[in-house]
């Protein structure tokens, strides 16, 4: 551009600094979500970098619920680990109890009686219903539907009551012992479970009616929090979150434990790997678990619930109080623990959120040398940023719900 040379013209302001052409600066905002946020269940903190309302980067920080689970186990006998396992996934403690015991029994080469296997299966599936109801109800609640939550909690309470009758505790079940179970089913329990299942069936139907075709619900769930099958596998997803992406992996089918091979059930598989599919997976598993429990209750036959070996199971109380043999066995088992042969083992069961794996090392004494737990939620939590980055902040809420992160098992 030609300019008259005789006139002094002030140099143009550098681009963007002139008063009129100033850009609206948008600054990325770094916010904390949690650890005490109503939607961040179980005290988890996430640092979220926002560009407007879009999540650019998300960094979950866990550890607020850390209890030193693995190290604590090294100081107690194998059976004394059970109360610690209650507190892993506190929405389904029976599965943690039984999963741990299963691994210990594999290491010790113990086969538990058939009736104990059935009761473990029934307890696990009841708690799967318990866990999924909690999750589905919470999704509804946080997307604005209070009614489904109340229905879910009603069903959950029924299961909780049955579990209380079985174990004596609502949450801290500590049920089962190495070699079987510490007690048999209470009288009239089977009938009460069947009644509760009938009611749950009804409630699940109600929840489905309220949510599955609900426009508000579907709009916030479909196509949100998507993860592909490859990514899910890479992150180590298991359970409903993996199956929602279309990978048909379920430990109950892949390597049937207890009496799962005698039970007919289907494993639902999703297509899109989004929130809606994960929700559907849980809904269908609720129905499948109900069917499993009903079958198991039909098949179960009377018999012992723990192995008859005083090196593993406590002797009956009259023997303990009345004979030296009983009192020695009791003393040794209580003070020194079940002697598990030296060695190491990995064993896993299908918990509500996926593969609950145990890597145990024994030095031949009555206490674990090392306990490592592969919590399904830990791997899934690590995939959360991948699922929400690039999405709106509000999409984090349903995504965090459907992965069903449980602080107790993730932070151990």
């Amino acid at each position, binding site marked *: 551009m030609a300019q008259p040379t005789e006139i002094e013209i002030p140099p143009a302001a550098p681009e963007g600094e002139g008063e009129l052409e100033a850009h609206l600066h948008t600054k990325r905002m770094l916010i904390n979500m949690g650890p005490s946020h109503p939607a961040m269940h179980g005290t988890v903190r996430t640092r979220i970098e926002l560009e407007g309302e879009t999540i650019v980067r998300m960094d979950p920080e866990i550890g607020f619920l850390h209890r030193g689970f693995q190290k604590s186990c090294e*100081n107690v006998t194998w059976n004394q680990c059970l109360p610690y396992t209650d507190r892993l996934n506190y929405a389904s403690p029976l599965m943690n109890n039984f999963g741990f015991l299963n691994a210990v029994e594999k290491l010790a080469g113990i086969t538990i009686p058939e009736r104990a296997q059935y009761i473990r299966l029934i307890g696990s599936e009841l708690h799967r219903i318990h866990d999924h109801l909690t999750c589905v109800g919470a999704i509804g609640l946080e997307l604005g539907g209070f009614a489904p939550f109340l229905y879910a909690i009603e069903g959950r309470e029924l299961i909780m009551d049955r579990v209380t009758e079985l174990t004596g505790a609502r949450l801290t079940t500590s049920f089962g012992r190495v070699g079987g179970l510490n007690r048999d089913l209470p009288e009239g329990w089977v009938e009460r479970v069947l009644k509760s299942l009938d009611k749950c069936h009804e409630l699940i139907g109600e929840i489905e009616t309220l949510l599955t075709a609900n426009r508000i619900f579907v709009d916030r769930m479909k196509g949100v929090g998507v993860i592909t099958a490859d990514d899910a596998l890479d992150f180590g997803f298991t359970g409903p979150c993996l199956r929602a992406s279309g990978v048909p992996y379920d430990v109950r089918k892949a390597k049937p434990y207890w009496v799962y091979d005698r039970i007919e059930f289907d494993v639902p598989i999703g297509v899109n790997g989004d929130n809606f599919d994960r929700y559907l997976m849980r809904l269908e598993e609720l129905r499948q678990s109900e069917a499993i429990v009903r079958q198991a209750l039909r098949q179960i036959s009377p018999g012992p619930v723990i192995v008859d070996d005083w090196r593993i199971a406590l002797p009956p109380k009259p023997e303990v109080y009345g*004979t*030296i*043999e009983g*009192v020695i066995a009791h003393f040794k088992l209580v003070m020194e623990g079940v002697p598990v042969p030296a060695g190491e083992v990995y064993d896993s069961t299908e918990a509500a959120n996926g593969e609950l794996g145990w890597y145990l090392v024994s030095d031949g004494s009555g206490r674990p040398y090392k306990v490592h737990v592969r919590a399904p939620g830990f791997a899934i939590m690590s995939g959360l940023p991948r699922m929400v980055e690039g999405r709106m902040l509000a999409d984090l809420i349903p995504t965090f719900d459907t992965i069903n992160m449980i602080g107790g098992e993730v932070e151990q």
Partner: protein
Amino acid sequence: MSEPADKPKASPAPAPGRPAPKHPGLVTVTVDGQEVAVPPGTNMITAAKTVGADIPYYCWHHRLSIAANCRMCLVEASTSPKLVPACQTALQEGMAIRTDTARVAESRRAVMEFLLLNHPVDCAICDQAGECKLEDYYQRLDARPSRLEGDKVLRDKRRVLGPLVVLDQERCVLCTRCVRFMEEVAKEPQLGVFARGSDEYIDVFPGHELSSNYSGNVVDLCPVGALLNRDFRFRARTWFLSTVASVCTGCSRGCSTYVDFLGQDTYRYRPRENDAINQSWMCDPGRLSYQPLNLERVSTPSVGRGEDRREVPTAEALARATVQLKAMAGTAELAVLVSPGCSNEDLLAGLTFAKDALGVRTLYVGGRPDGPADNLLMRADKNPNRKGLTWIAAALGLGLRPFGELVLAIEVGQVKALYALGAEVPVPAAQAAAALSKVEFAVLQAANVSALTAQAQVLLPAAAHVEDEGTFTQADGITQRFRRAYPPRGAAQSHWKWAVDIMREFGFPVTLGSARDVFRELAPKVPELAGFDWDKEAPPLKSTRGISPLPSAADGRPPGYREFGTPRVRGI
């Protein structure tokens, strides 16, 4: 009897005469298919242990004669169609032994069943529970319910045998270890087996009591809860006790011991295997010498004599001691009293302080007076470290004078101030206290309260040996390491620590921070100690993992112990 199916096929045919040894000078046998070559005369149980075959036994003890009466160690041997007792059967060249067959297992189970037939249901109140062989072997080898119909045989449940030992005849399995010990080792046959068959029982001979100075050993020997220590009985459950290796300070024999403790209390001493010194034994006075560790301890520093005595903070006591000692340092009026009960570390630091800071040329030697001695373990000199004191004083060029001369020197007014490393004296405490009361100024480092400590102007609480690490040199010149059980009580510190602290107050740049530092820094000056590898000679930490609620012996603290600051964990 039919040949068991799992008998090894390769069992050597009994050759005519003796087969030539496979390994010259050794006897070669096969235990559970593994070849073992051991010197002739080795016991089968010991030989089997070298390849991991753990043969159970009650009556056998490697330092006693063989009785073979418990029948627990029966094994299969290629030389006999019947099971043979492993403790009694001599090893022969080429012999094949099996300890893992069904026949052996069934024999062990049957023996356990018989042994428990009349055993009372006592574990809950039995001191042996937790370290009882009946419990261990029942759980390992039997683990079946009782088949007893009817009542158990009743006997005397609390037969007091002597001042230290009480016998529960119902619990006894009649292994006769105690009888053999009294006869063969203590050489005082006070115990015997009376009656016959199922009426048999152990007792003292009529009109006698178990009065031997070695009676405590029968309690250790007893594999079950029959013989119990009256001093320890009902005082602690064994699985709560932690254990460290230590040395007995009862006399100059320096028996190797284990110290069993809980919190900051020692509950008992037990002998630790040491071929060179005490074999598997210790004497009763030594066994009870743990008591002063718990009782009448000096726990806080104090200044002033008589009415003026008041407890003060450590820093104030140190300052007071320093001012007075500094004023007297280098003069002939300042004397130093050392006890041969102090560890080598205490003496190394204390004597260096006396020589370099206080400027003394001779030391007066305190220590406990002589006592009874015998031919087994007890020695007349009741101080654990006189040898060490002699060595260290010689190396530093310090003369040693008896305690009597100190008393004389005080009485003629030659000595006006005293620094004492340990308050044990070879004369009655009142007599020594009377002498000490004439001294103008006395700094006393003492572990236990006595008439003597009342006369100190500055009283510094000293740690007991179990409260720190260190070494003792016993009368034959054997130096032994002992480990720390728990931190010192109250404000107590080791003698070496007090010496180092005062030396620092004097202005010496001393940086010694642990007993190990003291030894490594100062011991090279002592020719006799220079070759002693302080780290390598440490007895192994005995693992208490298993039955105690939490592993606690690694840093010597009971579970949940937080009172004394940073845990002393190796590597920190």
